[in-house]
């Protein structure tokens, strides 16, 4: 591989790298902010739980499944008016982040739900028996107990987001994956193709490693 060619694309790669970080950063943040409460909601409103609301549970569950069934590109298009209203533009990394976030929210919500489901029901009952409010139980029992699983889930979401962010190119979002597609794929530039893929693979491995370590640190079991 011609080294000087690699050097010549470094500025672009660098830009793409930060675009990727920007997009997945925003999307992860949003999906945590929205998906976490949704995941908790899916759990606590379930049958036999302390905020049992089967209707809420079913409606939220349906919406989550719905968003997960729609192909990403369609989601991207369907969201254009919303994206425009929300961030004032339908192109660029910020706009791409909206669609990425919407796709990641239900995914992360399910991950959170699954993690919380693994908490021993006895611990929740003990909290109820102590006279704790639902809010206290959520904040001081469910979240701390599920923390290692939620961190693992956030890692999983982040890695999926990186894969999905390659599609940000559709709305001019840029990013490393898009760089790989536009230059590596469409313009037959194997140097860029391999360089970007190596960057992606490294990024994914680093994230996985960091997620594992972080999740282990907060795991007090």
């Amino acid at each position: 591989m011609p080294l000087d060619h690699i050097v010549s694309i470094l500025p672009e790669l660098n830009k793409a790298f930060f675009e990727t970080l920007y997009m997945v950063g925003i999307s992860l943040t949003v999906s945590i902010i929205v998906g976490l409460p949704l995941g908790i909601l899916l759990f606590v409103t379930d049958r036999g739980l302390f905020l049992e609301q089967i209707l809420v549970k079913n409606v939220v569950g349906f919406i989550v499944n719905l968003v997960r069934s729609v192909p990403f590109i369609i989601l991207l298009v369907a969201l254009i008016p919303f994206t425009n209203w929300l961030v004032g533009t339908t192109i660029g990394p910020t706009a791409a982040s909206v669609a990425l976030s919407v796709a990641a929210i239900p995914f992360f919500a399910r991950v959170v739900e699954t993690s919380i489901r693994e908490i021993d029901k006895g611990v929740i009952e003990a909290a109820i028996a102590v006279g704790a409010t639902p809010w206290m139980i959520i904040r001081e029992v469910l979240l701390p107990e599920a923390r290692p699983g939620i961190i693992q889930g956030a890692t999983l979401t982040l890695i999926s987001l990186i894969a999905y962010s390659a599609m940000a190119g559709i709305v001019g979002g840029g990013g490393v994956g898009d760089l790989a597609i536009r230059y590596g794929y469409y313009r037959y530039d194997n140097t860029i193709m391999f360089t970007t893929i190596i960057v992606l693979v490294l990024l994914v491995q680093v994230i996985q490693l960091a997620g594992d370590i972080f999740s282990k640190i907060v795991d007090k079991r």
Partner: protein
Amino acid sequence: GGSDDSTSDSSESAAPEAEETKEVKIGATSGPYADMVTKAIKPGLEEKGYTVEVVEFSDYIVPNRALDNGDIQANLFQHKVYMENFAKENNMELSDLIVVPTAPMGIYSNVFASMDEIADGAEIAIPNDPTNAARAFLILEDEGLIKLDENVSPLTVSENDIVENVKNLQFVPIEAAQLPRSVEQVDLAAVPGNFALASDMDLLDALVLENMPDEYRNRVVVKGGEEETQLSKDIIEIVESAGFEEIIDAEFQGFGKPEWMENR
């Protein structure tokens, strides 16, 4: 479903001697060109006893590879310059049969009323695939807004190959089909005619339309050496027929006709 037979016959290659092959697959990119094959070419071929399957691609590379591979017998999505460069770069032989009506790419704007008004540093959305990007750059070059590196192949041209950028245009590469949806977001957008039409844009609203020599019009392409097969002859015959033009006039308004069609 129809999926099984769509693949199992891949062994029946489109070699010249396979003229008796009556099952054909024609590839096209999703949108008007796939529709053109379906509505204007397929019925004619079927009259001639072919069984035709239109394979829609949402990509600009796979249709040529599939052609070379014998998975499809003809495709319709590219112009001559792209075809020739693709063939060269990928070591394959591709031949064009006949040019078809092609919707011209246009530069649209909700901000500027004419090309002269374009302000310094304006943002312009361009297609992110090279075949359409090349067309956009050519328009801009014709308008004297940019100058492209002369050595660069139209196959791989990108905003990085611009050597002169008079108005410091900021390029935003976007998926071609997405461009009509982004006109409102940017100062300028280079929208391929087919998607402009699909999204109910008026081609006449364009600040400038592509000056389209035939080499930038799309054409039916087959694998090199298959120009003389019966299928190729039949396709040319159908496209040249009056019925084809009638369908174009009825259902593909705004598509610019190639010289041969205009001049007959």
